[in-house]
């Protein structure tokens, strides 16, 4: 850190001092990690170039295992993207005061991960050079097209929804002059935090946070429908829309927890990501793990009761057959571990919730695997032989590349914007009395 920057930083109020520090102070560890993730991303890029050059044959996909890692990651990433927007929007709409420090990191996850989710189907295309055909020759009955539209809309609204609450903070950075003045002047777009501006901003955020919720719901519903609209066993199910939305929120919360734990540690944000935040999010996780179990149970029970031979082949393949290990690992990650850890106050600590969060993230990835692969390789017709799918190293490196690409971008983002919303924290302090009054109003007796 240059001296004048350090001086400027030291002259700022305490919130700014802590929260803007990562923007100007970068450790060697950061560069090392960025280098590692950059290298892995590069590996993914090279793998993709190889895949384009030689064809999708370089993957482990086959007939009937037509879909694999890419589609799994697509569903998974888009699911994670519900982290942010949906959580922060719901919390904002419901005026949950504890949200103030966590919304920014969640929204950042959303915007960055959507991009990596949205490119997965393109990576999966046999002819990516014809990707524009989807727009030029659109076929409106295809859920894939609905998906393109709803993801496009979601991406745009989430970007705005990330940007608007950033404005006051950008203005703060611009005014502090600690970093790239022209850049932040451009980004802050003339915001000066006048009462009129503040009022308009809050109204816009309020409207957006309501608009974004149905869009977010539609995105994962449509992704569920991509599967549900086919006549394949264990896909053709009405539960898929809500099940996917619920799963998305679940994996989103888990992802936020993991991100928060990391940020808290590396940027020393213990005063912002407090134990209570982990506790509250842990409670949410607990509720969602039960909800997950409820949905999963309902899905499998109905399939089992119907007992159609085509369905049962896939059903047993998951429960006891080829896919038993990923299936029960999923149950462990999505249900057993979070339930065990989150149902007790003693384990709803930052460490406990992080462990549960990691378990859920892995579990939810496995859930996508257990949805995509077993049905794909188990044709409905028993005369047709059962396929097998083993991802190739090309697929695995592309997956690793997209994961590390996301992490890398997230790391870089923490160097550009404050990861905790400064103005909202300040606003939170300012409205304590107002909130107390509001809370008091809830319990007013009939006077």
């Amino acid at each position: 850190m240059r001296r004048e920057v350090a001086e400027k930083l030291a002259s700022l109020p305490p919130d700014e001092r802590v929260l803007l520090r990562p923007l100007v102070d970068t450790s060697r560890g950061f560069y090392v990690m960025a280098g590692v993730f950059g290298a892995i991303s590069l590996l993914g890029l090279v793998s993709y170039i190889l895949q384009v050059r030689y064809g999708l044959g370089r993957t482990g996909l086959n007939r009937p295992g037509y879909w694999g890692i890419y589609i799994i990651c697509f569903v998974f990433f888009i699911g994670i993207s519900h982290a942010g927007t949906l959580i922060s929007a719901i919390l904002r709409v419901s005026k949950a005061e504890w949200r103030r420090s966590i919304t920014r990191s969640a929204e950042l996850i959303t915007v960055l991960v959507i991009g990596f989710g949205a490119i997965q189907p393109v990576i999966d295309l046999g002819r990516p050079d014809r990707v524009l055909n989807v727009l030029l020759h659109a076929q409106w009955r295809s859920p894939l097209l609905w998906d393109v539209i709803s993801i496009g809309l979601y991406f745009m609204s989430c970007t705005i929804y990330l940007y608007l609450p950033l404005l006051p903070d950008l203005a703060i950075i611009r005014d502090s002059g600690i970093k790239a003045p022209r850049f932040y002047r451009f980004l802050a777009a003339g915001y000066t935090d006048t009462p009129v501006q503040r009022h308009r901003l809050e109204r816009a955020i309020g409207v957006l946070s309501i608009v974004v919720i149905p869009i977010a719901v539609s995105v994962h519903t449509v992704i569920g429908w991509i599967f549900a609209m086919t006549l394949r066993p264990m896909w053709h199910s009405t539960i898929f829309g809500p099940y996917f939305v619920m799963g998305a929120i679940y994996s989103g919360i888990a992802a936020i927890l993991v991100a928060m734990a990391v940020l808290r540690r590396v940027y020393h944000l213990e005063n912002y990501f407090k134990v209570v935040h982990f506790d509250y999010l842990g409670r949410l996780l607990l509720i969602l793990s039960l909800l997950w179990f409820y949905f999963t149970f309902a899905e499998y029970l109905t399939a089992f009761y119907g007992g159609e031979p085509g369905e049962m082949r896939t059903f047993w393949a998951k429960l006891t057959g080829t896919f038993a290990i990923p299936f029960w690992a999923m149950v462990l990650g999505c249900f057993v571990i979070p339930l065990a850890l989150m149902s007790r106050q003693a384990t709803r600590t930052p460490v406990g919730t992080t462990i549960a969060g990691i378990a859920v993230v892995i579990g939810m990835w496995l859930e996508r695997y257990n949805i995509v692969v077993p049905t794909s390789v188990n044709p409905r017709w028993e005369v047709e032989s059962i396929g097998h799918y083993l991802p190739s190293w090309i697929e695995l490196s592309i997956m690793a590349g997209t994961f590390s690409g996301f992490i890398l971008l997230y790391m870089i983002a923490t160097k550009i914007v404050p990861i905790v919303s400064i103005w909202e924290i300040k606003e939170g302090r300012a409205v304590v009395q107002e909130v107390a009054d509001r809370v008091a109003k809830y319990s007013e007796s009939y006077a």
Partner: protein
Amino acid sequence: MRPTRREFLWAMGATAASVGLRWSSDLVWAPQVPDDLGWAPGTEQFVNSACLICPARCGIRGRVVDDRLVRLGGNPFHPMNAGGLCPRGIAGVQMLYHPDRIASPLRRVGERGADSWEEIGWDEALGQLGERLQSLRATGRPEALALMAGYCAGSMHDLWRQFLRSYGSPHYVAEDYDDGTSAVMELMHGIARRPGFDLERAGFVLSFGSPLFESWWSPLQAFAAFAGPDGSDDGRTRFVQIDTRFSRTAAHANDWVGVRPGTFGVLALGIAYVLIRDELYDAGFVERHVSGFEDYTDREGERRQGYRSLVMRNYRTEEVSALTGVPVARITALARAFAQAEHSVAVFGHEVTHAPSGLLSGLAVHSLNVLMGNVGREGGVLFGNDPPLDPLPDPRIDAVARAGLERGSLARTPAPFGGGDPASRFAAAVGDSPSETIDTLLLYYANPLASSPRPDAWREALERIPFVVSFSPFLDETTAHADLILPDLLAFERWQDAPTPVSYPYPVWGVARPLVAPPPGGKHAGDAMLAVARQLGGSVAASLPYDNVELLLKARARGLFRARRGMTLGDAFELEHHRQMEERGWWLPEHTEFEAFWDELVQRGGWTDLFLDETDPARLARTPSGRVDLTPAPLLATLAAAGRGGALYMDVAETSAATTDEFPLRLLPYRVSTLSSGTVALERWLAETPGLFPEVHWDPWIEVAPATAEAQKLGDDTMVWVVAASGRYRARLKVFPGTAPENVCAPYGLRHPDGELANPLQLLDGSSDALTALPNWSTTFVRLEPA
């Protein structure tokens, strides 16, 4: 409006991206077929010819577009396959255009088998061969020339024989697919000829293990019969398959019966028992035309048991059931169905005779046909006749040749009623003789190193032969050991006649003619040998006075023109019309000029005569008594001399070694429909999906019962070693419920994708039927080990 930097960059990026996408479209995604600036008029022709890939010799029709053969289908004029064709035939285009084809003659440079060759011209190559042959004759050793031929029928067979005889060599060795049926026919009917089975007109076909729908003499013949006339459901033949494994024929036949290996004969006699017990057999026929049915007194005045007593005493259904594993009710039902159908025929081949009591089992099975009187008549067993071709001129045999021929064959006939496997015996004999006893070996469509059950004997024999010439257009195992390769033209580039196999009871003389022009520098093996004969001059040249094979065929076809019977191929109506005319004693010539006749014959794809004179007594038996003999005396005498008792049919049950702990599973080799020895790599379409199993591609496999696989802890689709006392080979294990738990069913002639052979025949124990010298195919025991 002035574009901002951002807009400018964005627009630039978008342009670059879209140009890039389109550009990559051509570069990265363009189809592999090059965009040809040239053009072709797209002329399309359909040409009739004959398939030379397997012994069935079906009629084919090729679609030729601009001198490229793009599709093969069946010739609808051909009475045997009537427009249908099997996958092997269809895939012939891949053989024709195979990238590994040898284009010109090759001479070995460097070590034998080291795969280093130099290309030479035909004149030089034939000159070298001619000189070698000339010098052998000059030194008075014409018998040092030998020919090893694969399946070879018709005029090419005659041409080779003529060449060798006039040259003076007795060594015409052929893989002649001997299945012992001609020995059965000779003993019972006095006719030394493989039987024809008139499946199409039969009402009920009882097949004893014959792979009718897979790899029989002519699967298309069976298909036509199975389909029935005109595709209508009336009068369709009913097929019942008796088999030791759930073969594809068993799977698609109307019904199937599983039996224990080696008990075909027992089951046949069990059926005979029911026929006799319930008086279902054709007593009139038996009385008029059969001897040995009742007890009789032989020439020495000894009282002997006839067929009836033998069967009634020894083959009661309960006992047969215990031996064969077929329930009594099933045997009875089979016998009744066999007896009730209008024409029923029992079909058998090497699956029955390649067993310790193979000949006796063959006799037992064929006795069913005799009991029902279904011999020498429509819908039964027929002894077809050959098309009335003009023979080749009598070979001129000069003194050198005579001396050579008199020195005789190296390998003696080892058994009283058959020659067994002459190729292996020849190889063994060469191995036992001093080096250079055979100086020059010609290989014609033979790859013994891969297909022989005794490749070691061949390897040793080849080492003792200084000069090996192969006519193979592909570099197979044996060809790789050759000194000179004279690549023959492929099936769709050459003239050759294609007589249908004997299993088809009506003579059809198909003519294969070039569908596409041969490659420059290609040469027909027949033409090459005619050229060598000319080069040798003298009696050899005089014996083969033809410029090329086309003219040879044309000359022989004059016999058909003069025969006053038969017709050039035609559609179903023409064929039937002609047959009925001949039945009524009419025959009208189609042509007055031979040239016109020949042109039409070639254009239609061949000649046939579907009329069969059932009244000719010689069609039934040419034994001294003129009757079909159920207890042939020569066989009885041989059995008695061998101490096997004086009664026939007594030891048809196999008495082979039982399983041991070391080798607990019985090996049952079989041939798959689409592939035969060593052709796997040639036709990729077939290799991709070779069998009944959708998951097996390219790899050779073995079939094992689920219980067996589980007991041995071997998983489905894993690679295993099949280990016998004499060796082992690698194959993919397929768990298959259609295999009996004590057996391992192994297709032979397959290769791994890398060319490694998987030939279960090489594991056989080497034992044979003492009467025919035919090898035993079901007496070898193996174990499986993970590979």
